[in-house]
C-alpha cells in the first residue's frame, strides 16, 4: 500500500478564486492510500517545495499528488522536489486543477467538485505507480543547420565558435538566403551585402563548419543527441573541390536565356552560373533544365574553356548519411504568389512589382545596376505607389491571403519610399496602409523620417484596383481619413507581398516530427518561455521558419538557438524519458500492429525461444521496444490487439484506475 501525500495549490487566486482549496484538501484526505493532505498558496515556491519535502520525511510518503497547474508547467519542478526528498521522481502525479478546472469554470461549487474528482483520479493513479529509472544515451557532438540564410549562418557561426562542428545544408548553390538579395537594411540603411557577405565568408572559412550547398534533406531518423540524417547532394555537374570560381564558363556559355532567379527573373543568366559575385561556395553550377550539353549531348563549351577541368557532365546526385546531436531548422520564407491578387494587375503589367523585386531594381548588382527604371520600358518612374498588406492580415479571405501580419513590410516599405525620395527628388511617392506598425528599436523614428523629412505621402486606406492603361497604371484607392476616392496615374506600383514559410518546411517538419501551425510556421515548445525550441527534443528553430521576423530579430533568435544547441552538445550523456512502451512478450503474438503505427520506428521484432507447458520449446516472433528511440506516445498500446503493449508510467491499468475514480 502506498503512503500518499496530497498538496493542493492556490496559485494565488488563479485556482483559489474558483476552487475551494481547503475543501479539496479535506475531501482527498480520506482517499485510499492518502496519509497527508494540505494546501498552500504557491506550491511551486521554495516554501511550498520545502513543505512537500518535510511531509515526505515526516509521514514516510511513497507517493505524491500535487493539485496545481498543468504538468507541462511544473511537473519537472515537483519531480525534482520528490527526488530531493529521496523519492523516485515518477512517484509524483499532477492533478491539473488550473488550466483544466479553475480557468474554465466560473462558479466555486462546480470548480471545487471537479478539482476533487481530478484529485481522486490522480490519487488512484499514484496508488499503482512504480518507480521508473531513466536510461542514458550518448550525444553526437555535431550539429546540423538546415537552411543557409542569415538565420542559418548566424546559428552555425555561433555553434562553431563554441568549438562544435556544424554542417549547413542549403538547397541553393550558395548560402546567403533572402538577405543576399536585399539592397539596404532598416533602420540604419547599411547595405545588406556589406554586413552579410563577411559572415558568409566566415562560414565558408570556419574549420568547424561544412557547407553542403545545392543539397537537401532526404530522411531524418533517430532522436535527440543521436540523429541520423540522409543528405542528397544534387549534381551540379561541376567538381566543387576543383572549380576556382573564375567565372569563365559563365561568360562563354552560349545558352544566355535562362531567367535569373537571383534577380527574380528580371534579367537572364547562363545555363552554367554562379548566382552572384559573393557566392559561398564560389563554385559554378550547371542548370540541367537549360544546359544544351546535358539535354542534347551537343555543346561542351564550358568544359573546353575550364582551365581547371572542373566540369563533369556525368556527375550524379549523391546521397550520404551523417550523424548529429542537434538539428536547427532555418528554412526561411518566400513572398506569396500574387496570382490571386489580380486587382493589382501584377500579371498584367511588368511595372507592377513586388517589394523583393524592388530590392533588386535598386541594388547596384541588380538588373538595372541600381538605377530605378521601369521593367517595361526602362524609363525613369515619376509617380510610385506602394501598397502594403498585400495578402497580409487577410482574415476576411483566408483562401486568398494570410491572416497574420507579415511584420517586416511596414519597415521595408518606409525604407523603399525614403530611398526613392532620397535618390530621385523629382518623384511623388505614395504609401497605402491599413496601419503602420513600427515597434522596434529606432523603427518609429525611421518611419517618421520618411514622412516628415522625405515627404512620402502616407495614405490610410487600401488600393482597390490597378489598371494598366497606355504606359500608365491607373490606381484607384480610398483615403479613409479624408473619406475620399483617389485616382492616381502611377508609373510603378510596388506590392508588399505577405511572406510565407518556404515550401520545403512542411516535408521537413514531417521528417523531423516537429509540429507546425496552420500557416506552416514551425511551432515553438512554448511561445514565451521556449521560443527557439521545437516541441520535438533536439530540434531547434532559427529565423522566419518560426514566424515572420526582421533581420535583427532573426539574428537574435539564431544566436539563441545556437546557445540551446551548445547547451545540448556540451553534455556527454542525455537522460531519457523512462515513460516508454514495453511489450509483454508472453502475450505478444508478433502481429506487427504496433510497428505499423509507431511514428519513431522504435519497434523491431525478434524470434525468441519460449518454453511450452509440455516442456518443448518453440520459436515465436515478438515485438521489442528500443527504449532510446521510443518517445512514449502510446500509439502502440492502443493498436495492440492482445494487450501485450503497455506504456510505463501510463499503464492501461493506471489510466483505467483514473477513469474509475472519476466515474465513481
Amino acid at each position, binding site marked *: 500500500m502506498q503512503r500518499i501525500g496530497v498538496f493542493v495549490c492556490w496559485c494565488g487566486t488563479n485556482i483559489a478564486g474558483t476552487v475551494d482549496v481547503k475543501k479539496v484538501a479535506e475531501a482527498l484526505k480520506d482517499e485510499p492510500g492518502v496519509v497527508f493532505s494540505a494546501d498552500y498558496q504557491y506550491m511551486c515556491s521554495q516554501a511550498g517545495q520545502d513543505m512537500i519535502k518535510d511531509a515526505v520525511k515526516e509521514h514516510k510518503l511513497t507517493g505524491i499528488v500535487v493539485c496545481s497547474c498543468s504538468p507541462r508547467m511544473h511537473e519537472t519542478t515537483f519531480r525534482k522536489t520528490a527526488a530531493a526528498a529521496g523519492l523516485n521522481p515518477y512517484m509524483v502525479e499532477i492533478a491539473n486543477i488550473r488550466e483544466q478546472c479553475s480557468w474554465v469554470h466560473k462558479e466555486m461549487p462546480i470548480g471545487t467538485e471537479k478539482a476533487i474528482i481530478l484529485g481522486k483520479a490522480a490519487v488512484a493513479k499514484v496508488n499503482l505507480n512504480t518507480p521508473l529509472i531513466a536510461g542514458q544515451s550518448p550525444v553526437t557532438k555535431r550539429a546540423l543547420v538546415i537552411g543557409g540564410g542569415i538565420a542559418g549562418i548566424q546559428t552555425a557561426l555561433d555553434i562553431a565558435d563554441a568549438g562544435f562542428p556544424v554542417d549547413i545544408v542549403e538547397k541553393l548553390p550558395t548560402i546567403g538566403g533572402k538577405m543576399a538579395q536585399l539592397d539596404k537594411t532598416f533602420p540604419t540603411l547599411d547595405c545588406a551585402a556589406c554586413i552579410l557577405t563577411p559572415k558568409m565568408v566566415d562560414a565558408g572559412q570556419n574549420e568547424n563548419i561544412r557547407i553542403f550547398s545545392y543539397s537537401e534533406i532526404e530522411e531524418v531518423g533517430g532522436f535527440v543527441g543521436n540523429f541520423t540524417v540522409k543528405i542528397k547532394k544534387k549534381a551540379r555537374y561541376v567538381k566543387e573541390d576543383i572549380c576556382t570560381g573564375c567565372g569563365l564558363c559563365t561568360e562563354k556559355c552560349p545558352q544566355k536565356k535562362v531567367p535569373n532567379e537571383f534577380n527574380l527573373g528580371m534579367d537572364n543568366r547562363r545555363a552554367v552560373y554562379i548566382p552572384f559575385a559573393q557566392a559561398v561556395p564560389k563554385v559554378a553550377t550547371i542548370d540541367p533544365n537549360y544546359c544544351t550539353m546535358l539535354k542534347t549531348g551537343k555543346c561542351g563549351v564550358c568544359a573546353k574553356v575550364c582551365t581547371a577541368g572542373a566540369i563533369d557532365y556525368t556527375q550524379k546526385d549523391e546521397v550520404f548519411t551523417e550523424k548529429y546531436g542537434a538539428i536547427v531548422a532555418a528554412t526561411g520564407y518566400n513572398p506569396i504568389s500574387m496570382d490571386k*491578387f*489580380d*486587382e493589382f*494587375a501584377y500579371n498584367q503589367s511588368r511595372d507592377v512589382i513586388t517589394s523583393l523585386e524592388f530590392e533588386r531594381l535598386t541594388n547596384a548588382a541588380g538588373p538595372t545596376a541600381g538605377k530605378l527604371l521601369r521593367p517595361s520600358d526602362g524609363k525613369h518612374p515619376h509617380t510610385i505607389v506602394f501598397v502594403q498588406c498585400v495578402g497580409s492580415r487577410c482574415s476576411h479571405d483566408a*483562401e486568398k491571403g494570410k491572416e497574420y501580419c507579415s511584420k517586416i513590410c511596414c519597415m521595408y516599405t518606409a525604407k523603399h519610399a525614403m530611398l526613392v525620395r532620397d535618390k530621385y527628388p523629382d518623384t511623388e511617392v505614395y504609401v497605402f496602409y491599413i496601419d503602420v506598425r513600427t515597434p522596434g528599436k529606432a523603427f518609429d523614428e525611421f518611419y517618421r523620417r520618411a514622412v516628415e523629412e522625405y515627404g512620402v505621402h502616407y495614405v490610410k486606406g487600401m488600393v482597390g*484596383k490597378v*489598371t494598366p*492603361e497606355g504606359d500608365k497604371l*491607373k490606381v484607384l484607392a480610398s483615403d479613409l481619413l479624408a473619406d475620399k476616392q483617389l485616382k492616381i496615374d502611377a508609373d510603378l506600383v510596388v506590392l508588399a507581398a505577405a511572406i510565407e514559410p518556404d515550401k520545403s518546411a512542411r516535408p521537413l517538419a514531417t521528417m523531423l516530427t516537429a509540429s507546425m501551425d496552420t500557416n506552416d510556421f514551425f511551432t515553438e515548445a512554448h511561445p514565451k518561455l521556449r521560443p527557439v525550441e521545437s516541441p520535438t527534443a533536439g530540434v531547434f528553430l532559427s529565423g522566419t521558419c518560426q514566424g515572420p521576423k526582421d533581420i535583427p530579430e532573426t539574428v537574435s533568435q539564431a544566436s539563441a538557438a545556437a546557445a540551446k544547441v551548445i547547451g545540448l552538445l556540451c553534455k556527454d550523456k542525455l537522460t531519457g524519458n523512462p515513460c516508454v512502451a514495453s511489450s509483454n512478450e508472453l502475450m505478444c503474438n508478433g502481429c506487427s500492429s504496433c510497428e505499423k503505427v509507431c511514428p519513431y520506428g522504435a519497434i523491431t521484432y525478434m524470434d525468441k525461444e519460449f518454453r511450452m507447458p509440455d516442456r518443448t520449446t518453440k520459436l515465436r516472433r515478438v515485438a521489442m521496444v528500443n527504449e532510446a528511440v521510443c518517445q512514449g506516445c502510446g500509439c502502440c498500446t492502443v493498436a495492440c490487439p492482445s494487450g501485450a503493449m503497455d506504456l510505463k508510467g501510463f499503464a492501461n491499468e493506471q489510466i483505467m484506475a483514473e477513469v474509475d475514480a472519476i466515474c465513481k
Partner: protein
Amino acid sequence: MNVSYFPGCTLKTKAKELDVYARRCAEVLGVTLEEIENWQCCGGVFSTAKDEIASKLSSVRALTEARDKNQPLVTVCSACHNVIKQTNHAMANDADFALRANTYTGEPYNGETEVLHYLELLRDVVGWDKVKAAVKNPLTGKKIGAYYGCLLLRPGKVMAMDDVENPTILEDFIRAIGAEPVVYAMRNECCGGYVTLEDKALAKKKSSAVLENAAAMGAEMVVTACPLCMYNLKKNGGCDLPVVYLTALLAEALGLTDATHGCKEENNG
C-alpha cells in the same frame, strides 16, 4: 440537349431581345431552352439580410423544378443569375436558411441544381470551338468592349464563373464570334445599378466612367448581359457608344439577324 431556362421579368418586357435571341441562338447551337413553368420574379436583388427568405423563395421554386427535371438551370439576365446562384449556394451551404425555405415550400431542396449563366452554357456546355464553327457572319475587325458590370462575377466564390478582377469569359465570347475584344479598366465596375432611382447624378458618374473608358481604349461598341446595365449605360452613360446585348451579337454572328445597330429603343427602357 435540353436545359431549364429562367428568363426573368425584364426579358419579357423591356429586354425581349435578350430572351428571343438567347433561345434562337441556343437552338442553332443544339441546346433547347425549356422555360420553366410558373416562374416568378427573382426579386431583382439578393437580399443580404440573414433572416430574409421571402424574396428568395421564387428562386428556390425554380431551382427545385430544374432539379426535378434533372436539368441545369440557365439564366441570361445578370441580376436573375446573381439572385438564383446565390440562393442556390445558400440552400446548399446554409443549413438554417435551407431548413426555413424548405419548411415554407414543403419540398426538400438542398442546392442540387447546377446554375449556369448563358455565357457558361456557351463556354462549358457548347464550347467556344463549336460556337466559332457555327458563326456564319463573323464580326471581323469589330472592336468590342466587354462590360461585365458587378453582378455577373461577384461575389466571386459563389458565382465562380471567372476571375473577378481579370475576367476573360466575355472576351473569349467576343473572339469566338470573330470580333476583337478591347480590354479596359472599368469593365467590371458597377454601372450605378438601382441607385439611378435615387441619385441620378451618381448613376451618371458611374455609367459615364465606364463608357468613356471603353471609348478611350478604342471600343466601337460595348456588350452586356444585364438589362439594368443596358438601361444605365444608355440613359446615364452620356456617350453615344452603342451598347448591345450579348445574345443580339451572337444572333448576328450566327446569321440570325442584324443586331450591331444596338437595341431597338422600345427594347431597352
